[in-house]
């Protein structure tokens, strides 16, 4: 492995825990990642020395708070390759960012009969806001299917996109691990005259991304999956789009003037940030990105690809056909998310047995019920890898799974 995992793990206090006498093996980073000490330090240091509301005070700590908050915005914007900080609006999470687009851009640009194209591997965050708009406005949803290798089936792509106004697609599936070819999808969408929203919630933590290279219109991400704090995410969009969009939430910060009979809006991106923002969380997110950049996103990705390869091989060697893996069998264009199922044992029960041995995996539909229906299963277990995981973690998973298989065998001995 190219990363020094022992050193990295030392930066994450939670990973030093034991549970039931076992070393904690955290394999649920796709749900939410653990936080390095530097993120907690940055938040504490900010609260101890520079905390104040932003964009408001003349006094020194308020000035410092504003400068650090805006510097964090620049850090996030830079991390995803935005042209300028003004293109990045802070939200609570990726979900709110997609809702913002659906409410503001969607209600302005989509009318009854207009088509929004999704894929079968979208997270509920990139489905339900469009369902809500469908119910309210009568827009139509089309779905790009998945193929037998758990990748997008692009056979009828042009047909599906034809006449569409928007393609909303994840850059990486949180269930399958599949990494989609965003530049190609954007080109296809552009030829069809559609805008493109990229859900980068899973890609941003694990791959180098560049919204300008993607040539996308909107991208969303969420701090807690990329070593940052909970409570903050972001919408990136081209400046022209943000400027043309009406505001989403109303209140302080987002206004230029308020009278009894109306209001005017502030400049972008503040137009989309109503009320006191998640100030300390922005500082923490900035520190998380500093940490990731200190290691390098190429190195993070490379490590995860190697570890995924190791895990897929080890699972196959141990369980073979007895275990179904829901996701690509190769590691090209694939992230470290491994969904699996023993056909006769429910994912919940597998997780429970693993928990006895301090192996943390998630069981359930992973907020992707339409995908579960396509796969014709109610749930999977999911082990997801990050920069602090190593082959020992994968080995612990495999030992736990052998125990689960034994415990729930039809005739246990």
């Amino acid at each position, binding site marked *: 492995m190219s990363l020094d995992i022992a050193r990295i793990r030392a930066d994450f206090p939670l990973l030093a825990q034991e549970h039931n006498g076992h070393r904690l093996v955290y394999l649920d980073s796709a749900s939410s990642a653990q936080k390095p000490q530097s993120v907690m330090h940055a938040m504490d240091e900010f609260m101890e020395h520079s905390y104040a509301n932003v964009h408001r005070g003349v006094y020194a700590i308020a000035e410092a708070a504003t400068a650090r908050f805006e510097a964090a915005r620049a850090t996030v914007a830079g991390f995803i390759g935005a042209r300028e900080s003004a293109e990045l609006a802070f939200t609570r999470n990726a979900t709110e960012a997609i809702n913002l687009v659906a409410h503001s851009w969607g209600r302005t640009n989509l009318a009854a009969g207009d088509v929004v194209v999704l894929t079968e591997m979208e997270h509920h965050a990139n489905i339900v806001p469009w369902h809500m708009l469908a119910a309210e406005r009568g827009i139509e949803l089309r779905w790009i299917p998945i193929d037998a290798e758990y990748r997008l089936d692009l056979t009828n792509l042009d047909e599906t996109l034809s006449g569409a106004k928007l393609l909303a697609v994840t850059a990486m599936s949180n269930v399958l691990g599949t990494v989609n070819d965003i530049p190609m999808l954007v080109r296809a969408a552009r030829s069809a005259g559609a805008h493109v929203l990229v859900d980068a919630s899973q890609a941003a933590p694990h791959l180098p991304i560049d919204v300008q290279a993607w040539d996308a219109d909107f991208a969303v991400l969420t701090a807690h999956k990329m070593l940052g704090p909970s409570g903050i995410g972001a919408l990136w969009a081209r400046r022209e789009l943000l400027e043309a969009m009406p505001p989403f939430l109303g209140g302080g910060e987002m206004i230029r003037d308020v009278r009894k009979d109306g209001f005017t809006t502030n400049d972008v991106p503040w137009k989309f940030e109503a009320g006191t923002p998640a100030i300390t969380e922005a500082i923490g997110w900035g520190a998380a990105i500093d940490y990731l950049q200190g290691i390098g996103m190429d190195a993070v990705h490379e490590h995860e690809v190697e570890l995924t390869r190791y895990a897929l091989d080890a699972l196959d060697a141990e369980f073979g056909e007895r275990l179904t893996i829901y996701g690509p069998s190769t590691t090209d264009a694939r992230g470290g998310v491994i969904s699996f199922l023993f056909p006769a044992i429910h994912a*919940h029960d597998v997780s429970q*047995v693993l928990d*006895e041995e301090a192996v943390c995996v998630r069981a*359930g539909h992973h907020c992707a019920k339409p995908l579960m229906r396509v796969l014709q299963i*109610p749930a999977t277990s999911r082990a997801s890898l990050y920069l602090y995981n190593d082959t020992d973690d994968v080995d612990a998973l495999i030992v736990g799974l052998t125990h689960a298989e034994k415990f729930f065998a039809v005739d246990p001995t």
Partner: protein
Amino acid sequence: MAGLEDLYREIILDHYRAPRNRGELEVPPAHQVEGFNPLCGDEVILYLDVENGMVSDVKIAGQGCSISQASTSMMSAAVKGRSVAEARTITRAFKALMSIHESKIGGDDVDATADDLAGVRLGDLEALQGVVKFPVRIKCATLAWNTLVQGLDEIESSH
């Protein structure tokens, strides 16, 4: 520290591997009701035949973990052949068994008091008591019961 044996008693695994009353009933005359656990995707489908205030037949379908499947199977055995009133009392007694943690996590209000449920005998169902030590699984255990109540309510309000 609660171990796996507290959760997965033998009788639970037995109901899971060999669920009672699995199948369907014709709708109508039977009433069909579905329940979801939004957190894990488990699904329970109940077919209820209620005549003259009696739960004359119950069939169960759906998919889920051992706890939700076993609880559904046990529930079907416990209420089949009982009056609607008895079925409701058993449900409340069962939820009282689970309530310690459920009310904390889920905020469901359990109005059962020890007193008015003192006489209810839960039998096999008591094997599910170990679930309270695993708070997340309580929703698995109560899914079938919440669905049952919903079904009974629908049947009664349609009269």
